[in-house]
């Protein structure tokens, strides 16, 4: 299966959160009436805050990676500014699929790596256990937008 059910998704993010706690990493697990999601944020050397959310997409039945980059006063970078930051990655396919959408739970604008290609990506690990599929997805998508992922997560 190239997709994840909601239960599988919730299990994956729960596991990731547990692991994060153990290695003192910064993932936060937020549970709301509209669904659960994971958040990771850090402030870079230019004092820009990078925020990553892993949310479940019902229509594509896959996880989706939302992100925003903001100044410390909370104002967001525009799409053009974000492109400037990622110019070195122009050659990758990711360039075509960054778009801006309303976060399905928070209802405010986030940049998102469009999930239409996720099934293709997951094809390569179609026969792996769910947790490995999830981590594979996260490492590919996260890496293209600067999400640091410790190698520890790959270790059981």
């Amino acid at each position: 299966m190239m997709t994840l059910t909601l239960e599988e998704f919730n299990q994956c993010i729960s596991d990731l959160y547990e692991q994060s706690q153990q290695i003192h990493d910064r993932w936060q697990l937020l549970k709301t009436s509209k669904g659960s999601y994971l958040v990771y944020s850090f402030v870079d050397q230019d004092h820009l805050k990078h925020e990553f959310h892993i949310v479940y997409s019902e229509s594509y039945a896959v996880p989706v990676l939302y992100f925003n980059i903001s100044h410390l006063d909370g104002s967001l970078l525009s799409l053009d500014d974000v492109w400037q930051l990622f110019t070195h990655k122009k050659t990758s396919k990711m360039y075509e699929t960054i778009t801006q959408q309303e976060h399905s739970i928070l209802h405010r604008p986030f940049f998102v790596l469009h999930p239409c290609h996720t099934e293709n990506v997951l094809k390569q690990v179609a026969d792996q256990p769910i947790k490995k599929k999830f981590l594979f997805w996260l490492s590919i998508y996260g890496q293209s937008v600067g999400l640091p992922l410790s190698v520890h997560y790959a270790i059981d």
Partner: protein
Amino acid sequence: MTTLKFVPYSSAFDTGFWHELTRRKLDIYRLDSSDQAIFGYYSNDANDNMPVLFNVDHQCFDEKNQNSYQQQQYSVNGTLKLVNTIEEFKAFDIDSALKAESTLLWNDFIHGRALVDPQKLNRFYLLIFADLKKYIYHYWFAFPTFLVPTSFNLLNQVQSIGERFSADEITTISNLLNSNQSHACCLHRQQSVISLKQAVQQLNDQPQSTAEYLFIINDPSTDPVHPGWPVRNLLTLLYYHLQSVEELNVICWRERFRDGQRYVKHSLYLQLKPESIHNLNDAIPPTTGWEKNERQRLGSRQVNLSTSMNPIHLAETAVGLNLKLMKWRLAPEIDLECLEQTRCLLLGAGTLGCNVARCLMGWGVKHITFVDNSRISYSNPVRQTLFTFQDSCDNKPKAQAAADALKIIYPGIKSMGYDLTIPMPGHAVGDSTMEKVKDDVKLLQDLIRQHDVIFLLTDSRESRWLPTVIASAEQKIVMCCAVGFDSYVIIRHGVPTTESNASSTRYKNILSGDKLGCYFCNDVVAPGDSSVDRTLDQQCTVTRPGISMMASALSVELLVSILQHPLRGQCPALIRADLEESVPEAVSCLGIVPHTIRGFLGRYSTVLPTGEAFSQCVACSPIVRQAFQENGFSFLMKVFNELNYLEDLTGLRAMQLATDISEIIELSDDEEIQ
């Protein structure tokens, strides 16, 4: 002796904080500007060269969320004051507010509550004014601290714990603090963790044993010599409660985790000489703590969030992004900006006008002007897609109603409506109406000049004559669209060029843009002659409803293709579109750019004939154009009032007279009238 100096906080907001604040203001607080309890947090795991951040995020409004914070995040209670006007904000009594907040802190200090629960070591005050029309937020943080003691004297220079303790000692300390979640605590003999309260009690009993006590405080600063605000407050607290202690050992605890490994050696070790402040008699000492602004002055800050919160901005961004995605993923050569800047004049705001406008908006066109002289009637809304039943009850003028409807669909549109009757040949103008007609002509002329593309979407043949003449003189792009019961025709008028007849075309199969014909080129009679029944000039209420949508959509798509071509209105058309020969000059990035599209719904078929401009055309021929440019309104008056004037002028009359009816043969589309 050197004195210890501290690094103040830098306030940091999560974007979600502003959204949640706005929501609460609108739904919960409304006009209530009384104090609200909120909380913020700081962490002790920042990287080097980071400012000392004090954070508030979208969870901060609800006390219940305090415990959902994670490791390395330490909560701080505070007060939010959300005022209702900018005047209140500017006139706000910051001294009183700081005093009030500091009093809460001071009371927690002197009554020992902060010793029991070190979370009470810190407080903050946040003053905000939210301008919810412009989405500009004015804010000012205060982090109260006391101005006594006046200095914190160090017995030795500030060191990192790596310089002071051995690796083993650091490991021991680290392990002891592993499961410690409190904001501050104390290590006794580096063997056990005790509370501040216990430490103070024991030290007051035996002040000489002070070397055995290591106070631990989580420190948000990463500066190698200066700790953060919580440390200052801890010292103030301890100096109040400790009696006759000669030396105080403090670790400003800083942690960093990388790949599961913990790094703490950058924590600071302080050895201080305490100065007792116990005899203050519980009166609150002077305080400080308002955050400086970006210019390092005492003043508020502001943040403008309209691009991410103003729905109109958000709509604009989303619509633009949608079109850009199409470009990036499917049609990289497309020029979207030129579409955005193209100003379109729609003559006719009926079935065709409404649908053309909708399609133009889909392409990101921002300037759309409607001209129509009629009002919305009950039969209109089902076919005229910008109007509603209510509009027909109100009998609104169509042009204005259409312009208004566009704004409701997309606020960023620049739409206008003009209630104007287009003067027509064969419709006589008397002396009493002449001035009005003159003004109407002037207005029409001005409108044509101010726009780039003219759509002819009216319900009669003769109403298209004057706009054709003017637009031809002004060298504008004209999209002429006419419908019959089950057929439609779309013609892009030839655009005359000021250059002399340029080089002959290298290809036999194309006709250059200035040689293309107009709506009237195929006629041998002038418009206004109502005795001849033609399919394409009837009042359009008798067409199959789908025809209008098909024709409108095709006109817009053809226009977009024209605009993508480097020659724009001058772009050539293939004479025989069915021929395989590919002619690069006649193609835009969207495909071929035909002159005429004729569709027949009964057969679901389309043909793409190309018509050459007729040298005796009643609308676009040089004779007519010259007469118009030289004689202006007096020429027009003759056209309006004299039945055969145009036919005489162009020589058509002579041609008619010379033609014997019995000699007429069937003309096919691609033959020319010489």
